[in-house]
C-alpha cells in the first residue's frame, strides 16, 4: 500500500513539500509538478533533502520544469505526462500536497 505523493507548490512559499517529506515512507514516491519543480533545481537544498529520504523515489514533471527554466538535479528522475499516469497507476493511491 505505497503512496505517490505529489507537490505542486513552491517550497519557498508553502510548507507543502516539507510536510510531504515528513509523511513519505519507504516504498513511496514523490512527484514534483507545477511550482513544486523549483525544489528540483540542480544543487538546491531541497534536492539534497529529497535525496536523503530512505527508499523514496523522487520525480519531476519534465514539461513543468522546462516551462520554468529549471535544470533538474541529477538525483531526480524526469517523467513526461505518460510517466505521470504510469506512476499514478503503479501506486495504490495519490496524495496531493496542495
Amino acid at each position, binding site marked *: 500500500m505505497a503512496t505517490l505523493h505529489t507537490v505542486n507548490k513552491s517550497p519557498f512559499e508553502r510548507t507543502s513539500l516539507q510536510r510531504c517529506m515528513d509523511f513519505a515512507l519507504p516504498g513511496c514516491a514523490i512527484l514534483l509538478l507545477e511550482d513544486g519543480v523549483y525544489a528540483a533545481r540542480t544543487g538546491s537544498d531541497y534536492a539534497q533533502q529529497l535525496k536523503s529520504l530512505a527508499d523514496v523515489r523522487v520525480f519531476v514533471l519534465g514539461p513543468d520544469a522546462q516551462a520554468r*527554466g529549471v535544470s533538474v538535479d541529477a538525483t531526480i528522475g524526469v517523467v513526461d505526462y505518460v510517466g505521470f499516469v504510469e506512476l499514478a497507476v503503479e501506486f495504490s493511491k495519490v496524495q496531493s500536497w496542495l
Partner: protein
Amino acid sequence: MAKRLMYLNRRAPHGSVYAAESLEVVLIGAAFDQQVCMAFVDDGVFQLLEGQDTSAIGIKNFTRAFKALGDYDVTELYVEQESLTERGLSAADLMSITYEDEDDDWNEKPSMQIVSRAQMAQLLEAQDVVFNF
C-alpha cells in the same frame, strides 16, 4: 504630476495568474506617462529565470514580454539579492533585459538592477503607489 508607481512581484510565473496579470497591467499602465518601476522579491525572482520554455505545457510564455518593457519606457527592474540567494540563484541565471537610453545616444543599457533587501525597503518607501502581485 507624474506619480511614482511600483509593481511588486512576489509569485512564481506559471503556477498562478498573478505574474502574467502584473505584466499585463504594467504594459497598459505604461501608456499613461507615469514613473513606473517593477520589483521582484521572494518567488517573484523566478519570473526572470533564463531559459523558460512553456511549449510543452500548452500556455503562452508571457515572460518573453519582459524584454519588450524598454520599448514601453519601463526601464527600472529591481531584483532583491537576498531572494536570489535564498533560492540558490545569481544574476547569471536571469534573462538579459535592456533598454535604449534616448538621453545617451540610444545606447543599450541593462534594465535590471540587483539590490539588497534594505535598498528594496527604501525603494518601496519612495513610491506613491505600490501594486501587489
